[in-house]
């Protein structure tokens, strides 16, 4: 285990009493609680942490926060492995295991790094220009090799063992960012009584203050602010939480990392929680991010943002280098220079500006820091870590560079190219950003309603101003929600020390190559390896729109979404095109602000809970009876009830056989059921069904078909008339929801004058169909208060009575073609009902059957189902043209008269059977004139079954002019299996076409 050579003896916000060990690339290291993986690596002197995406260049840690472009690692093992984790955001835990990515065989020696030598060949867009030959489809050959080089990290290979949760939240004021301005905003809003949620990405509140030197007034203010907030019951503080997206109506997507800082989530706890938060006002106090300056080899390990250097020293007590050069174009980097110096490093500053303010100048001199004003770092040298930098005289106004003046040896180069307010969330709302010349930054232009920006996100120059603006915006947000401004105006932290502010920046984004020096790549987008030359190349080829530039070079498209690169790319493009930055514009901002795991967004909707399951009231009983279930929509329905050793085919044949020979029972509870009541119920049904329902006598049921307004069949079912103004409608399982919604739609929008109430009672009623020649005897043995005789209770009759003690509705209708009853009972009685019938069953040779047998029985009878009603079929196609009433209009009656729907050549429903011997038929076969097997044929096979009644395969299908082709032999073609089966067209009523069995 190595020493923490880079750890300072004192200071920092780490807890030295809680040492932690961790492993990186197989080597063990130590760190402390409060470290990030990045700070712990730096403490151990590890600078090389990864390889770049395209050229496999060695890369180190560049930042200290979410903007980190280089230090992506693979975290954890097995099912918990997570690729591309940003090391600067990983809180260290004991036993953490991480590895570098995208290198082979090792990080130190990566074979693929030879690519770097040919980087000019692999310049932006190279793949559009080659890999096209020598043969057609050659790309497929090259692509294999290119894909091998794809990706950063390895995907997990095992299922994720962790759970995820979702949460819904509501508040008046959402404050995004827990830095000084966010804390101030939350205080101001919270004191006024508003419901406030403050969301902070990091583990600790304080934002950039945490990276200040420790102790003193800053910490005192921070402690008192946080303390007060914690005491306010109307304020909720959410740390380790990212606002990743700003959506319509001030709805925000948040990701809370509940267990990511632990080795594994606590027992029963989720790993992450995704929040949907609805706010009435939002204050963005999201701070700013520092940006690099672009120069030769600016991606070497040991080159780092100045703010990061400062953060490592002050927050983590890590000194990332002993011999430090700070390269800047603005004042803020001097804070880092002074703090590193104070921590014992040798520090020199290279400033592109000719002069700096007197006060700063004095501070630098007093600290013993060498200042190279009017100079630039033109390039960094070193192999896997910076060894020295070349400093040239530089004219920041004209952008002119002189020859190399000196080489400053160093092991750390801190860079500050200025700051970019973190306004991604505003950008996601489509809010325009404006370029502010003086501060050389993009600031919020017009802010959308309900949003406010505070603190450094608003470009406020110093801490006091930031806190004041937080107070202002937080208070105003609460006021906008109707809360009186707090009686005690927020105490301004007058004693907060100020520091080098963001003034006097020289807007330099790139340092030209010094005269006579050789070529070095200058990186703009580290994560996607996009350099200055790539931008130049793209522009020279005409990819001038900033969006074309992005797409041609892939600038800003990496997981970091250009947090450190976008602005520089924009500035460079503007310079090359000779246009002002404002005219070039930014690319579109999109969620998420930081990458969000798929698992979190999926939440609890995973595995068997991906979608809820609907179960019939008799479900448990079926399970106990050994039913095999099948998923139909969201329902689980008994498919068949195998006897020991039975296959599905054997089981359903036995079941269907029993229905034809004795009696069977099947659970049909999933059918849609709609209660239709009111004085206009009959008129209403007349309008929605193609056939008449006003003529239906009380106590009778009728089969009905509904059309869509465009004349296509939407659903079918039976509807019974229970009383003059009371109907009971059934729909298909699949159609239930749509039919219900459609009925309500018609009643409320088209015909609000009709007095009809519709209620879905699907879940209220359990339903069992009892079918077979012995069904009447069976039911009669159980129902005492209904006369079951044929005459008294005829086919299509409806009765109410009791089965045992259970109140039931009895419908004498049949899907199977046998004498049959549907029995409806209150759902809670469903199991009792089933049991009562099956207990009486043995005497009648009763068999329970599932939906496979149900399907076989209905095909034998030529009854249509989902495979026939596929959203393209007309009534006439189904052979039901006679069901279209001529006496009254109905939904669809107008548009069903269109020529295409009347076309005589349309496919019509027919029965099909093998023309020679009993060959198996297959659904999905295409029907063709014999031997003419191309194009779209003349129809298709929709449903197929082995018919237990007939002892052979039968099918339903649609054939062009099918009704006139009875007896013709055509081909059922199934090229997927190379099969052609001659089939005979016949009536779809295979069994008992006269319907005698219904009454037998």
């Amino acid at each position: 285990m190595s020493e923490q050579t880079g750890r300072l003896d004192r200071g920092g916000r780490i807890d030295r009493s809680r040492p932690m060990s961790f492993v990186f690339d197989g080597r063990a290291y130590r760190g402390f609680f409060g470290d990030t993986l990045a700070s712990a690596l730096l403490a151990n002197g590890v600078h090389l942490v990864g390889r770049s995406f395209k050229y496999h260049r060695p890369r180190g840690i560049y930042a200290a926060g979410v903007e980190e472009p280089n230090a992506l690692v693979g975290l954890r093992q097995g099912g918990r492995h997570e690729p591309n984790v940003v090391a600067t955001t990983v809180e260290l835990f004991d036993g953490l295991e991480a590895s570098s990515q995208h290198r082979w065989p090792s990080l130190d020696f990566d074979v693929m790094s030879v690519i770097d030598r040919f980087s000019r060949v692999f310049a932006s867009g190279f793949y559009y220009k080659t890999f096209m030959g020598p043969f057609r489809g050659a790309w497929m050959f090259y692509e294999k090799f290119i894909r091998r080089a794809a990706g950063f990290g390895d995907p997990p290979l095992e299922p994720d063992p962790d759970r995820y949760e979702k949460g819904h939240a509501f508040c008046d004021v959402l404050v995004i960012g827990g830095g000084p301005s966010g804390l101030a905003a939350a205080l101001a809003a919270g004191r006024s009584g508003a419901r406030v949620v403050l969301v902070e990405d990091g583990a600790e509140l304080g934002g950039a203050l945490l990276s200040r030197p420790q102790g003193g007034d800053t910490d005192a203010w921070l402690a008192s602010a946080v303390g007060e907030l914690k005491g306010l019951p109307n304020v909720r503080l959410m740390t380790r939480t990212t606002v990743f997206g700003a959506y319509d109506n001030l709805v925000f997507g948040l990701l809370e990392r509940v267990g990511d800082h632990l080795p594994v989530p606590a027992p029963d706890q989720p790993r992450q929680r995704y929040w949907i938060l609805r706010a009435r006002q939002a204050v963005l106090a999201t701070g700013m991010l520092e940006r690099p300056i672009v120069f030769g080899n600016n991606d070497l390990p040991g080159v780092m943002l100045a703010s990061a250097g400062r953060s490592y020293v002050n927050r983590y007590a890590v000194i990332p280098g002993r011999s430090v050069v700070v390269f800047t174009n603005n004042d803020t980097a001097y804070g880092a220079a002074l703090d590193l110096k104070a921590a014992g490093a040798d520090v020199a500053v290279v400033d592109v500006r000719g002069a700096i303010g007197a006060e700063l100048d004095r501070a630098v001199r007093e600290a013993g820091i060498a200042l190279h004003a009017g100079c630039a770092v033109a390039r960094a040298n070193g192999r896997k870590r910076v060894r020295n930098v070349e400093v040239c005289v530089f004219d920041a106004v004209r952008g002119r560079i002189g020859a190399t003046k000196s080489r400053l040896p160093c092991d750390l180069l801190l860079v500050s190219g200025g700051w970019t307010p973190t306004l991604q969330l505003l950008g996601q709302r489509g809010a325009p950003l404006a370029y502010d010349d003086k501060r050389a930054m993009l600031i919020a232009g017009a802010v959308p309603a309900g949003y406010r920006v505070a603190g450094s996100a608003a470009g406020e120059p110093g801490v006091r101003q930031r806190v004041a603006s937080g107070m202002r915006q937080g208070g105003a947000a609460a006021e906008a929600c109707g809360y009186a401004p707090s009686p005690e105006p927020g105490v301004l932290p007058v004693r907060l020390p100020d520091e080098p502010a963001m003034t006097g920046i020289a807007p330099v984004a790139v340092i030209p190559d010094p005269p006579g020096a050789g070529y070095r790549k200058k990186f703009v987008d580290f994560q996607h390896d996009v350099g200055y030359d790539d931008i130049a190349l793209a522009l020279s080829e005409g990819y001038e729109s900033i969006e074309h530039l992005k797409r041609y070079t892939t600038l800003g498209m990496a997981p970091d979404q250009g947090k450190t690169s976008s602005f520089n790319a924009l500035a460079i493009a503007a310079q090359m095109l000779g246009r002002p930055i404002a005219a070039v514009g930014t690319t579109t901002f999109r969620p998420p602000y930081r990458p969000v795991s798929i698992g979190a967004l999926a939440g609890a909707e995973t595995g068997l809970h991906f979608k809820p399951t609907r179960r019939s009231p008799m479900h448990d009983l079926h399970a106990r009876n050994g039913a095999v279930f099948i998923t139909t929509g969201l329902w689980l329905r008994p498919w068949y009830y195998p006897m020991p050793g039975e296959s599905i085919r054997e089981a359903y044949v036995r079941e269907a056989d029993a229905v034809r020979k004795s009696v069977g029972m099947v659970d049909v509870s999933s059918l849609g059921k709609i209660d239709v009541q009111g004085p206009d119920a009959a008129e209403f049904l007349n309008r929605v069904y193609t056939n008449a329902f006003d003529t239906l006598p009380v106590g009778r049921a009728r089969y009905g078909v509904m059309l869509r307004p465009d004349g296509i069949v939407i659903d079918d079912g039976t509807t019974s008339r229970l009383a003059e103004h009371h109907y009971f409608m059934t729909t298909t399982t699949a159609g239930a929801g749509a039919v219900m919604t459609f009925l309500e739609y018609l009643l409320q929008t088209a015909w609000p004058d009709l007095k009809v109430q519709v209620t879905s009672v699907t879940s209220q009623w359990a339903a069992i169909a009892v079918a077979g020649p012995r069904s009447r005897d069976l039911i009669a043995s159980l129902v005492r208060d209904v006369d079951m005789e044929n005459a008294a209770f005829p086919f299509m009759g409806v009765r109410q009575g009791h089965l045992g003690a259970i109140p039931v509705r009895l419908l004498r209708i049949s899907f199977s073609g046998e004498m049959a009853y549907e029995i409806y009972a209150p759902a809670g009685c469903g199991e009792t009902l089933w049991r009562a019938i099956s207990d009486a069953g043995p005497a009648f040779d009763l068999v329970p059957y599932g939906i496979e047998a149900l399907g076989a029985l209905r095909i034998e009878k030529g009854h249509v189902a989902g495979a026939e009603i596929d959203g393209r079929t007309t009534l006439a196609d189904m052979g039901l043209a006679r069901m279209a009433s001529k006496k009254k209009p109905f939904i669809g009656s107008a548009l069903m008269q269109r020529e295409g729907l009347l076309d005589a050549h349309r496919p019509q429903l027919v029965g099909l059977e093998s023309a020679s011997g009993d060959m198996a038929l297959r659904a999905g076969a295409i029907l063709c004139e014999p031997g003419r097997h191309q194009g779209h044929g003349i129809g298709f096979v929709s449903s197929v079954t082995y018919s237990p009644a007939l002892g052979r395969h039968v099918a339903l299908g649609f054939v062009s002019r099918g009704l006139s082709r009875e007896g013709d032999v055509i081909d059922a073609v199934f090229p997927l299996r190379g099969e052609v089966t001659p089939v005979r067209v016949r009536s779809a009523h295979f069994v008992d076409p006269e319907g005698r069995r219904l009454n037998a």
Partner: protein
Amino acid sequence: MTHYSAFTLIRKALGANRGWTRAWRNAEPRAGYDFVIVGGGGHGLATAYYLAKEHGAASVAVIEKGYIGGGNTGRNTTIVRSNYMIDGNTRFYEKSLQLWEEMSGELNFNVMLSQRGQLNTCHSPAQMDAAARRGNIMRMNGIDAELLTREEVRRRVPILDFSDHARFPILGALWQQRAGVARHDAVAWGYARGADRHGVDIIQGCEVKGFLQEQGRIVGVRTTRGDIRAQKVGLAVAGHTSHVARMAGLRLPIETHLLQAFATEPVKPMLHCVVSFGAAHFYVSQDDKGGLVMGSDLDGYNSYGQRGDLPIVEETMADAKALIPLLSRLRVVRQWSGVMDMTMDGSPIISKSPIDGLYIDGGWCYGGFKATPASGWCFAHTLAKDRPHELNERFTLDRFRRGHQLDEKGGGPTPWAH
């Protein structure tokens, strides 16, 4: 214009990549053209290309309000396939796939057509039957298709959920080997470069705001950069078809809806083909950078906002994890969306309009990327010859009135639910 090849690439690299020529000229609008194509997406650019190349049109302009390829061409999930069942669609999409297969060579621009195959999973016997019907139609039309069993699917794509925890177990799948993905931007740029080479003016940053009409005939367009006269005007503006057509007084069987797409962080290859999930409306592939690109349902309400919302984010991610549980710990880096021209039957329109001089190519719904070459090819034919090619003769505007919808899904005139 520089010819692209490995050789040029190396030669230019040695010259520090100086001296590459522009891929296309950024043309200034002229006073008039024979053909003005509105919309610089793949379809508009392909139309211009084929007009010039196949029909010898010498005076063609493409007018784009933003930057070319910035519409749906630049924001789709790039799936290319020809597994259509309805007569009228099948052969059109197959023609398109054949044009794709030629495209890189023809344009001398690598559009990276990667025919890695597409899998449509089936989760019920009924879905298997429907897949069989589709596959059989494909085969009868000379298009490759295979029907796979659960075991065959597992062998091909083992990372799908074959566990006991799958809410909708996979029973099998329809497979088209020649399906795959192509590089979205390259299609726009490649056609633009090709069209430019044939003299087409590509005019960016120029929005059509109205039409020039004379005696009930369209004779040009009003744009933000002035009036441009034209013998014929062709619209290829995707989600904005209704909006632009209305400037000429036309109402169309189209609604505009949002469709989102998502990309994850790049990872090493884990998914080697395109998969679409039969238990939900979800599809995914892994691009050559390593990111998984995925999409699902429409956001479900009319919108020109080009900005998707959370309900579909959640739904898509739940779908993703249900189909491929290993995706759980991968992260989404970007969520974007496009505005779709959804027709009432889900099939496109390539047709003369009722107004002389105005032609419409639109209604591509969420499936028009794969149609890009054939759409351009047929639209060019329709514009040049004033009558449809047989491949697009059913893509008319009046098919709804005549009852000849091409309803591939059977969804009816509720496009938001397609």
